[in-house]
């Protein structure tokens, strides 16, 4: 019987986080303070973050030791198992060897506690009594609640009101771990009160919830704020995932040709891929795929043709499945919004061609999630389904090409608290409206004068 999964012994838990900032081909420029125009310094961030995290945010040290107290608590769920997806391989009839790292085994059900735990620890040793944060559906809020609880810190979560009303189970998880969860906008902060004065029925937003959480931290010296994505120190803490994966792949006797992660704020993606990108910088052949949502069904409705990569027509003509560069309303791509929510480290690595971005439409992600659940058993978080969908595309591509590719997926979390999304899919409520042919024709007329690639097809 072939080995299905590998559990590393606890002694193999990584002792250091990997800091890719030390190896970046194009170093990130320091952010400038919007008020002074000067590079952001520790004092600017000190009202909301403890100093050890600020130091990590700007660190150029390649490896940073993980404190013993964090290692001890990582052992609650780490090292996480890596699986060979035999059933999915068989179902897809692919020659690819598929592996996935299961980050859904943490108590909060995702990779998020990898940084929540570290942040709670550094706050604890810095004298913080209470941590504030914001959350939408509650994946981050629940992770931070659990980790604050493990280090004896109070946790205050401003949960977007529409999410608070729609996601009671995540809220109850937070409260079970002792956090105080408040629907945002609330009457507890100036930011919240201003919104409520204008609109007492405001459903809230992440922007409002962040304002409340930051304000609460600035107002009280014993309170700090915590963020679960985007920032450098958050991505740093996640690199335990990829370092464990490297050891597990070696035990399987394999090395990935393609590493895949979903990239929203970038943290699970970075956690898995940064150690492999280090290998790539040092000469290894490995493709890194960052998968994001797309709503435009270009692959199914558009021809394969040359098109501009953006609506301002600055990028070179690229052969692609397209509905024409003007199909997506101009501001979306012209404003650079596609990546604006992504971590700066990830964005820079895309620009340096070390990461390949990929967009997958919503329906395909749920189809992939169902396939994964019915073959490997695990029900993925909807975000994770994006990566699963990319994995399936790659596996089918390997089949078409007849190549025994090795594919590695970061299975970043389970979807057991997100079943409403699956219900919407299974009941057909997510079915897209059909695009009217006249709208497609109008968009395609824009690319009609452009040159056609050799393999042009309608």
């Amino acid at each position, binding site marked *: 019987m072939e080995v299905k999964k590998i559990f590393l012994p606890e002694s193999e838990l990584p002792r250091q986080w990997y800091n890719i900032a030390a190896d970046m081909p194009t170093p990130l420029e320091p952010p400038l303070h919007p008020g002074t125009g000067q590079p952001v310094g520790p004092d600017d961030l000190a009202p909301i973050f403890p100093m050890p995290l600020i130091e990590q945010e700007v660190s150029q040290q390649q490896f940073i030791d993980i404190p013993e107290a964090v290692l001890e608590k990582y052992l609650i769920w780490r090292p996480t198992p890596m699986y060979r997806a035999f059933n999915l391989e068989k179902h897809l009839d692919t020659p690819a060897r598929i592996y996935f790292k299961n980050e859904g085994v943490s108590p909060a059900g995702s990779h998020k506690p990898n940084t929540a735990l570290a942040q709670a620890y550094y706050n604890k040793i810095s004298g913080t009594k209470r941590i504030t944060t914001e959350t939408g559906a509650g*994946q981050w809020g629940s992770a931070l609640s659990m980790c604050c609880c493990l280090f004896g810190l109070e946790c205050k979560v401003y949960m977007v009101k529409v999410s608070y009303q729609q996601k009671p189970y995540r809220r109850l998880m937070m409260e079970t771990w002792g956090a105080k969860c408040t629907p945002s906008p609330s009457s507890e902060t100036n930011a919240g009160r201003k919104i409520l004065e204008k609109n007492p029925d405001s459903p809230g937003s992440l922007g409002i919830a*962040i304002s409340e959480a930051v304000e609460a931290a*600035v107002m009280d010296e014993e309170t700090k704020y915590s963020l679960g994505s985007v920032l450098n120190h958050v991505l740093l803490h996640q690199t335990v995932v990829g370092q464990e994966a490297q050891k597990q792949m070696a035990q399987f006797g394999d090395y990935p040709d393609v590493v895949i992660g979903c990239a929203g704020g970038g943290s699970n993606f970075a956690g898995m891929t940064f150690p492999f990108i280090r290998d790539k910088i040092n000469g290894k052949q490995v493709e890194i795929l960052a998968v994001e949502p797309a709503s435009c*069904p270009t692959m199914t409705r558009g021809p394969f043709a040359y098109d501009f990569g953006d609506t301002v027509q600055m990028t070179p003509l690229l052969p692609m499945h397209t509905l024409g560069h003007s199909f997506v309303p101009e501001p*979306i791509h012209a404003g650079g919004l596609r990546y604006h929510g992504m971590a700066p480290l990830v964005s820079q690595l895309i620009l340096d061609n070390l990461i390949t971005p990929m967009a997958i439409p919503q329906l395909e992600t749920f189809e992939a999630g169902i396939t994964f659940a019915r073959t490997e058993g695990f029900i993925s978080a909807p975000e994770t389904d994006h990566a699963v969908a990319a994995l399936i595309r790659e596996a089918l591509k390997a089949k078409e090409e007849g190549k025994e590719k090795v594919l590695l997926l970061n299975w970043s979390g389970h979807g057991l608290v997100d079943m409403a999304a699956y219900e919407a899919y299974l009941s057909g409520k997510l079915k897209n409206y059909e*695009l*009217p042919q006249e709208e497609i024709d109008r968009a395609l007329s824009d690319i009609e004068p452009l040159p056609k690639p050799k393999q042009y097809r309608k």
Partner: protein
Amino acid sequence: MKHPVIPPDDRFKIRCRKLGHQVAFSYCRVENQGLPCAKTLDCWHIHFPVASHLKKELTPDQWHRAFVSPGRPKMMTLLDLIEQAKRAKEEGSK
């Protein structure tokens, strides 16, 4: 099949990539302090002619603020919020 010219009602929901759960168009329409969420066009354009609909509803200035102004990096947003909160704290202590 013809596209509907008005937004789907609140029974029709799509997944919000910011919040991580299903939301109706009525939420996206006001998410940004009464203005549409910056991702509204991207998320909804396959479901109905959202750009035409919002162009009728928004003034050019509102459209610009909602969709054309570039998004700010998270660090900049945090620094702005810290400054705002510090000012509020100082005013509160006077």
